[in-house]
C-alpha cells in the first residue's frame, strides 16, 4: 500500500473542497476501497473520510419517493420497513450481496462506486485497460467465466458487480450529487458508463463531486417487484446472472415493466428491449420468454461465459413468473 494522507471532514463543503486535488478518494465503509489500496490498484495520495457527514438517513418524501443518504449502510436500507414493503426488489438485492459483515459496513454511495471483480483487474501482474489504460485486456482471451456478455468492448469485458445497482436501475433511481458548482441529479442509467475505448472511466462524477443521496421514485400502486440472483455458492458471491423485476399488472395485462440484469453487463443493465415486449402484453410465460430473448438479443459470449446468455434468460423468466404470479 502507498502511504496516504487521511482527512476527516464534518460537512459536505469541506469534503468537496478537499476532493478537488488529484489522486484523492472519498472513503466510507471501505469494503472495496481498502482492498484496492492494499493491492496497489488504487493508490490515492489523499483519502477523505466522509463518515461524519450525516448522510445516513432514509427519508420518505411527501411524493412517496424515498431519499436515501449516501452513507446509509446496506443493512439498514435492506431492513427498512418501507423498503421491504414498497420496494422488495431493493431489499432482496441488497441482502443477496456480500455477507452480513460487509453489508454492515458498506454504504449506498460506496456501492454505486464499487469496482469490477474481474480477476485480471485485481492482479497487477496482468494487463488490464481498466487499471492501466492502454495495457490491454487479459480477460478477453483469458479466463472469463464471470465476465460480461452485454455492453462489452474490445478493450474491456469486466462485469459491474453490484446487486443493489441492478435493483436501482430497474427502479429508475436518481442520484443526487454535490460539487463545487452546486448540486445536480443524474438519472441512474446515465451514471455508469460503458467501457468503450475508455474502460478506466466508469461513471459521470467529476473529481470534486460527492454523492449525497439516491432517490427512489414511488411506484404506482399495485406494483410488484422482486430480485433473483443465481450464483456458484449460497452467500458471499457475485452473481453469475441476476434479474430485478418491477411489474404493474392490471387485469392480467402488463401496464408497466421495469427490468434490469446483473452479472452480465459492464454496467447495471437496464433491459429496455425486454420492457418494450412486456408493456401492454398479457402476463404469461410465453411473453416472459419473448421478453427474455429480447433482453439478451445483443449479448456476446466469450470462451468461458457463453452459458450466461441462456442462464440470464432463464433467470429473468423465473423472476417474471415469481413476480407476475404474485399479482
Amino acid at each position, binding site marked *: *500500500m502507498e502511504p496516504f494522507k487521511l482527512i476527516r471532514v464534518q460537512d459536505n463543503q469541506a469534503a468537496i473542497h478537499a476532493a478537488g486535488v488529484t489522486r484523492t478518494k472519498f472513503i466510507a465503509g471501505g469494503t472495496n476501497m481498502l482492498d484496492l489500496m492494499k493491492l496497489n490498484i488504487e493508490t490515492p495520495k489523499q483519502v477523505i473520510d466522509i463518515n461524519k457527514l450525516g448522510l445516513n438517513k432514509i427519508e420518505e418524501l411527501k411524493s412517496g419517493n424515498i431519499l436515501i443518504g449516501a452513507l446509509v449502510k446496506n443493512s439498514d436500507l435492506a431492513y427498512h420497513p418501507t423498503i421491504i414493503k414498497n420496494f422488495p426488489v431493493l431489499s432482496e438485492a441488497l441482502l443477496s450481496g456480500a455477507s452480513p459483515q460487509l453489508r454492515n459496513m458498506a454504504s449506498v454511495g460506496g456501492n454505486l462506486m464499487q469496482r469490477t471483480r474481474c*480477476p485480471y483487474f485485481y492482479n497487477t501482474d496482468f494487463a488490464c485497460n481498466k487499471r492501466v489504460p492502454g495495457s490491454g485486456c487479459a480477460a478477453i482471451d*483469458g*479466463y472469463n*467465466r464471470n465476465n460480461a456478455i452485454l455492453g462489452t468492448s474490445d478493450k474491456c469485458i469486466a462485469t459491474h458487480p453490484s446487486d443493489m445497482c441492478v435493483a436501482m436501475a430497474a427502479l429508475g433511481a436518481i442520484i443526487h450529487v454535490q460539487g463545487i458548482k452546486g448540486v445536480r441529479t443524474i438519472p441512474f442509467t446515465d451514471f455508469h458508463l460503458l467501457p468503450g475505448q475508455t474502460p478506466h472511466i466508469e461513471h459521470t462524477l467529476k473529481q470534486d463531486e460527492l454523492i449525497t443521496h439516491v432517490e427512489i421514485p414511488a411506484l404506482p400502486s399495485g406494483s410488484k417487484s422482486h430480485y433473483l440472483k443465481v450464483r456458484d*455458492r449460497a452467500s458471499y458471491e457475485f452473481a453469475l446472472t441476476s434479474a430485478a423485476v418491477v411489474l404493474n399488472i392490471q387485469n392480467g395485462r402488463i401496464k408497466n415493466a421495469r427490468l434490469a440484469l446483473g452479472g452480465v453487463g459492464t454496467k447495471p443493465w437496464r433491459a429496455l428491449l425486454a420492457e418494450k415486449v412486456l408493456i401492454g402484453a398479457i402476463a404469461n410465460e410465453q411473453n416472459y420468454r419473448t421478453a427474455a430473448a429480447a433482453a439478451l438479443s445483443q449479448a456476446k459470449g466469450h470462451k468461458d461465459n457463453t452459458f450466461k446468455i441462456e*442462464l440470464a434468460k432463464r*433467470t429473468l423468466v423465473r423472476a417474471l413468473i415469481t413476480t407476475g404470479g404474485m399479482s
Partner: protein
Amino acid sequence: MIESVGKPIDRVDGRLKVTGAATYAAEFPVKNLAYGVSVLSTITKGRVKIVDIAQAKKMPGVIGIMTSENSMQLHFPNASDPGGGKFAEKDLLPLQNDRVFYGGQHIAVVIAETFEQAEHAAATIKILYDEQAPVVGLEKNIATAYKPGAGLGGAETQTKRGDAEAALQTAAVKTDETYTTPVYHHNAMEPHATIAEWKGDELMVYDATQSVMGVKGLLTSMLGIPAEKVRVVALYIGGGFGSKGFTWGNTILAAMAAKQFNRPVKLVLSRQQAFSAAGRRTQTIQKLALGADQNGKLSAIKHATTSETSFVDEFVETAGVATSMIYSSPNVDVSHELVRLNRGTPCPTRAPGEAPGTYALEAAMDELANKLKLDPLQLRLINHADMEEQKKKQFSSKNLKECYQRGADAIGWSKRNPTPGVTREGKYLVGYGMATATYPANRSASTARATLFADGHAEILCGTQDIGTGTYTIATQIAADAFGLPIDKVKVKLGDSMYPKGAQSGGSQVTASVGPAVRAAALGAISKLIDLAVSDSNSSLHGYKKGDIIADNGRIHLKSNPVKAETYTQILNRNGLDKVEAQAKTNVSTRAQAPTPAPAGSPEAKAEEESKANAAVQADEKTDRTPYSFHSFGAQFVKVLVDPDLGTIKVDKIVGVMDIGKVMNLKTATNQIMGGMIFGIGMALMENTQYDPNNGRVVTRDLAQYLVPVHADIPEIEVQFIDKPDPYISPLGARGIGEIGITGITAAIANAIYNATGKRVRDLPITPDKLI
C-alpha cells in the same frame, strides 16, 4: 475412575483459541523483529536479468533486500519426506540462481522495520527478465506425459493384477469414461508464516508447520548447522491440510534473512502468494473403465490418471491408490502419468490421491450400477472386498457393510427413485447418491516423555503438533487414562522440536502413532511409581506383586483391595522426589517398513533403551502386523435438491458413517469427519483454481475468486461411527481420521445430482452452467 477416552470432551485448547490467547507462528512477541515481504516472479518461465532495487533500498525503514545476487548459499536437503524434512522443491532452493520456473516464484525479499514499509518498498522493485515460452496447460501437453517413480512414502504408482484389458474386452457390461478434477488450493485459515531468530550460532524458528521435527531436520541440512543448534516451535497451527507438510520458501527465507541482516525476521505469505508458492492439489484427468458380469460382479478395473508436476520436483497425486484394494476384482490395472508444466510444485492435499481418485471410481461405480439396473449400494455389496486382494492380506478390522446399512437408514435410501430426473420436491428435482470412503490407517514411530509431579499433576511432552485436529485434547485423554488421573490434572505439551520426536501430521497418522507412545510413557511413569512403593518398607503396598497393583484417580492400589492404596503425592514425598519420569518410543509401522533404530546417542536412542523395560511398548511392538492390511472405511450418503431451470444445487443432507477403529473423542472425531465432508462439498460444487490459458499464471488467487463453501451452503450433516477398536493397529485400537471424511463424498454428491437430473457431469466442480 471413568475412562475419558472416547468421550466428547471439549478441546483443551478451545478457550485459548476463541479468546485469541493461543499463539500462532506469526504472533510470537520477538524483540527487535524485522518484517520481510517476498517479491514473486511475474513471468512464467525464463531468467531474471536485473532486479532493480535502487529505489526500494532507499525507502523508509528498509533494512535490506535479499536476492539471488547476495543471499547465502544453501545446502541440498538430505531428506525427502515430511518426517525428516521435505523441502517442497528440491531443484529450486530459494534465491540460489536466476532461473524462473513458474509465475509467483520467490525472486527477492525486502526486510524493513515495519510490515507496511516492507510492502511499500517491495512494490517498487522492478524485475527485468529474459522471458521464455512457458509450458502451459495439462491437456495441451498430455503428449509429454511420463511414468513417474514411486509416490510419497514409497506409494506404488503402477499396480496390476490379472489382465484388466483382456477382461474388459469380454465383460458383459462395462463403462469407460474420463473424469476430470481441477486444481484445488488448501486455503488454510492461517497463512504460511515463519519467525526466525539467530542467537549466535543458534537458530530459533516459529513456523506454521505440520512437522516441527521435519523443519528442524531440513534447516539443519539446508543451512549446514548442527541439529542441536536448531529449535522449531509450532504451538498452534491454523490448519494445514497438507500444505504445511512440505516446507516452503517462507521458512528457509526467514532463516536466511535473519542471518544476513542480523535481526529476527518475520515472513508471512499473503493469500495471493500462497496460490503459487505453497503447493496445491493437482489437476487430474482420470480414465476409469469397469467391467462386470450380468450380476454386477466386477471382472476388471482400469484406472489411468494423468496429472501435472513442476520442472523442479516431482509429486504424484496418486488418484488410483485406493482403486486396487477397495473392491474385489481379479483384474486391476492402476497407472499414473505426469506432465511437467511451468507451475509451482504440487503437494499433498487432504487425502492426496484418494480424494480425486474416489470421485472417479465411485462415480464410475454409479454409472455401472445404472447400466446394470442395480441399486448402487447393492453393487458395492456384491463387490465387497473381504480381503485386501492386491497385497493378499486380511484387513486388520473392517466393518464397511455396517457403514453402508447405517448410512442408508439415516439418509432414507429406500426413498431413492432409481429412475433419474423424475422425482420432485416442490420446484426442485431431488436425488440421492452414495459412495464408499476409504483411507489407509498409517502408523509410524513416535516418542513421548511422561512426568508425574509430587503435587499430583502430570505432563506429557511430544515433538508432534496439533494442526487443529484435536491432538492436544485426545493426547490429554489418553494420558489421563494411563496415568489414572482426571484430564484437568494432565498437561500435554506439543509443537516443539526440543521434545521427544513424535510423528509428523500427515497421512492421518498422529493419533495412531503418538497415542500409543503417550500411553506407554504414562504407564512407564506409573510403573516406576509402583516400583518405588513395593520396594519401600514404609509403604502400605510394600512387598506386593507389581502386577496386582493398578493406578486410579491419583492413587495406586491393590486390584483386589482398593483400600490398600497410596496417592502419587504420598509416594513421591516420602521418597523426597519432586517427580518421576519415563520415556517411551513405540517403533511400529503399518506400512510394513522395518522400524529403523535411532542413531546412537540421540534422545530417541535413550528412549528406545528405556522402552525395552516398558511392558506397554513391548506388548505393542510384539504384535505381529505383517498379515494385515490397515485401512479405514466408510459410507457417504447425500441428498440433493436441484433447480432444473437455473442449475443451482442445494445439498440437502449428508450422512457419513465411518469405521475408523475406536473413537478417541466423539466431539473432535465428528468435527474431523464433518470438516472433510464440507471440504468435499467445496470440491464437488465450487472450488477450483484457474490458470491463465495464455501465460499459465494463477488468475483466481484469493477467497473472493476461489470459492470455498460458506455456512449457507452446508446442510444438516450426520456423522456416525462404528466405534469398534482395531485389534492390531495399537493397544488403543484407534486409526487416523483426518482425511477419510473427504473421500467418497464428492462422488456421492455427483451421483446424487445424476439421480436428481439424469445429467452425468464428469468434470468437477459441478456448477449451474453444467446443468442447464
